[in-house]
């Protein structure tokens, strides 16, 4: 297995990705709070899942934004006046924050997928957690011990799992759009398409700097589409 340590990020793009993470996170919080209102009226499990799913995704994105801000600030200060040893702490925070981001996102997507499961499917949250735990054990087992707590070890697994889960959600919202044919469901399709393409392109960020840039553009387009849906619904 080839383990890559550095994402290829163009220097001029530093900071833009952070802003995109924060904006996406805020949009996620808006959707989450509206889903909570919905749940408080209906008390339906699927609405609870919608609320929890977006809440976890928003927390993850917020964390990712915070970590990238931190590492850029540290990187800039190091370039000016300190030795490379300071990078140890930078990577320490990055590892912790990004691993948490990966975990929160996978859990968030999985809960959103639960909300889209057909009613007759008897998959409980316990079964879902077991599948996730089993996948986690398989991944951990394939990782060298020295790389166990490094964020880059899990980057590709994280994106692959996200592609699978978001792919399922995208399929479900596409089916919904083909039935309802309205603007709101179209914007949701656009939203999840953006998130889906973000993970595909992010998977290739180790190989091409443009993959990183375009991935983040798709991420922001995705979340802005969800925001547009929310604004349209509220007016």
């Amino acid at each position: 297995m080839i383990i890559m340590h550095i994402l290829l990020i163009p220097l001029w793009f530093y900071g833009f990705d952070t802003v995109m993470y924060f904006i996406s996170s805020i949009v996620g919080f808006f959707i989450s709070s509206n889903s909570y209102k919905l749940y408080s009226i209906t008390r339906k499990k699927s609405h609870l899942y919608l609320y929890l799913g977006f809440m976890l995704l928003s927390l993850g994105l917020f964390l990712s934004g915070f970590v990238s801000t931190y590492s850029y600030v540290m990187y800039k200060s190091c370039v000016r006046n300190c030795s490379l040893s300071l990078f140890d702490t930078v990577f320490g925070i990055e590892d912790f924050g990004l691993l948490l981001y990966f975990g929160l996102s996978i859990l968030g997507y999985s809960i959103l997928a639960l909300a889209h499961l057909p009613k007759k499917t008897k998959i409980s949250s316990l079964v879902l957690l077991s599948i996730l735990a089993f996948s986690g054990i398989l991944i951990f087992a394939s990782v060298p011990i020295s790389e166990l707590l490094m964020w880059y070890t899990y980057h590709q697994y994280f994106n692959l799992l996200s592609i699978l889960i978001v792919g399922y959600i995208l399929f479900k919202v596409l089916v919904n759009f083909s039935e309802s044919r309205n603007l709101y469901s179209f914007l949701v399709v656009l939203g999840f398409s953006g998130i889906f393409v973000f993970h595909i392109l992010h998977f290739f960020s180790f190989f091409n700097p443009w993959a990183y840039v375009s991935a983040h553009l798709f991420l922001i387009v995705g979340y802005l589409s969800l925001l547009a849906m929310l604004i349209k619904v509220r007016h």
Partner: protein
Amino acid sequence: MILRRSKAQILLDILASIQKENGKIKKTHLMYHANLTHERLKKYLEILLLNNSLKESKTGNETFYSITKKGYDFLAEIRRLKKMSEAFGIPM
């Protein structure tokens, strides 16, 4: 196929029925418009009266229900949230 209405959908139907009748309706008419039995309607009316979305008044032997300002706001909010829920492919 017969689809059961959710609690939120029934509350929406009750409020929408009253709104259609210019904000005030007889209890018997409401049963007919909202397609509910007397017992079930009573249960939902209690909820709406408790959260001040409806006001009850009596004229002779007839009981009337009218929507309050809070009720109109609640109706608008349920309609918005219903659109959002359906946009995600999750029926309310």
